């Protein structure tokens, strides 16, 4: 995928995600469609495009979701670096299993990053962040990962369908 279409995809997915994240909740947890789209781009694009998509996704996430600008920019950039390295050294072949594995592993990294960030922000603001590690590790993280995997599978199938239609 080229850089410009990748950025358009991130833009559309971000606003779509803002619109439907509320409705498509399970146990109060929603999937992170922006992140899934970003990993999807990572699977089919060059390093430069992945990094640009990461910056774009991080920018929008910081703009709408973060109390401090720059944190998601860092998280997405770090995830981009991991995805690029994984593509070069471990997962060279883009297929559904590789994609889901990347969604899972990058999701663990991303959610842990978000949790550490929230704890840190609560600490510097002298507040109590009510989500405990036990609740996070046993409920929020598994549920979010499962929902991301389900969304990832759906995204992959839709992309495959479109590819078949376009090539037919």
């Amino acid at each position, binding site marked *: 995928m080229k850089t410009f279409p990748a950025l358009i995809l991130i833009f559309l997915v971000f606003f779509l995600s803002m619109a439907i994240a509320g409705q498509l909740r399970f146990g109060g947890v929603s999937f992170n469609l922006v992140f899934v789209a970003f990993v999807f781009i990572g699977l089919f694009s060059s390093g430069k495009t992945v990094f640009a998509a990461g910056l774009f996704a991080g920018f929008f996430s910081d703009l*709408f979701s973060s109390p401090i*600008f720059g944190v998601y920019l860092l998280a997405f950039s770090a995830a981009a670096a991991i995805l690029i390295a994984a593509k070069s050294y471990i997962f060279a072949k883009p297929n559904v299993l590789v994609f889901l594995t990347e969604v899972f592993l990058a999701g663990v990294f991303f959610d842990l990053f978000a949790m550490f960030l*929230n704890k840190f922000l609560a600490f510097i603001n002298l507040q109590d962040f*009510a989500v405990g590690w036990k609740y996070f590790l046993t409920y929020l993280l598994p*549920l979010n990962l499962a929902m991301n995997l389900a969304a990832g599978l759906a995204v992959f199938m839709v992309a495959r369908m479109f590819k078949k239609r376009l090539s037919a």
Partner: protein
Amino acid sequence: MKKIFFSKFGKAFIFVAAVSLLAFLSLKGFLTGPKNLAYKIFLPVQKIFYHTGSSVSDYAGAIFTLPEIINQNKNLAEENLKLQGDLSKMSEIARENIFLKERFDLPADSDFNYILANVVGYDPVSFGQVVFIDKGSSAGIEKNYPVVTTGNVLIGLVSEVSASTAKIQLIADPESAINVVSQDNRTTGILKGGGGNSLLMDMIPQDKNVDVGEKIITSGLGGIFPKGLLSGTVEKIVSSDVDVFKKAQIQPVFDAGNLGIALIIVPR
């Protein structure tokens, strides 16, 4: 030196330094202007996506839940009859209340103004429970204003405001903490969000009672939330006798996934 500077590590270092500078500027409030401008630009896009998404999900949901809707309709018709009866009783009590207040020269209840806003999006990335509305400081909304939905049901408070939009931190957000009281037993506590759908009423004294099914309302303590806003119903008591305070799991009254409108309470 030049080689090291432009190597991958050098670039990564410059990037992290630039992001840290952005974070610092954002903490000091220097990015508020550009952020407001960005919100202004993206709000119309967000509105289009939200309304389209809501319409599609409403239609799709209706197809899958048709038997449930028929059943719900039947129950609502019965409930409506009961509420009509209650309403006539309540208006009698209200009339009596006004008469007695006039008679004993008591001050009238402090009233609030409401600003009606539409929900235009949900936070798609973080674990927080945050929604965006289409009105901001130009409509008179300020930070920490309480937000309710139809029926005086508390949904949260304004956590961030720009000129054209505002963020509402829902009561289930992990950073939310509200002084509440149980409606029948008058037991006080603090309602905390736990992420997900869960709400927890904490700091309930051991010698006080709360019953399953009892309504939880805001107590008015702390000054942010006016008293009497419905916040949830008690689902179960989750603590043991050895704890210093009792805890109760609370079921929220509103559906966070289907918030159409939000009423922002403005003190008069």
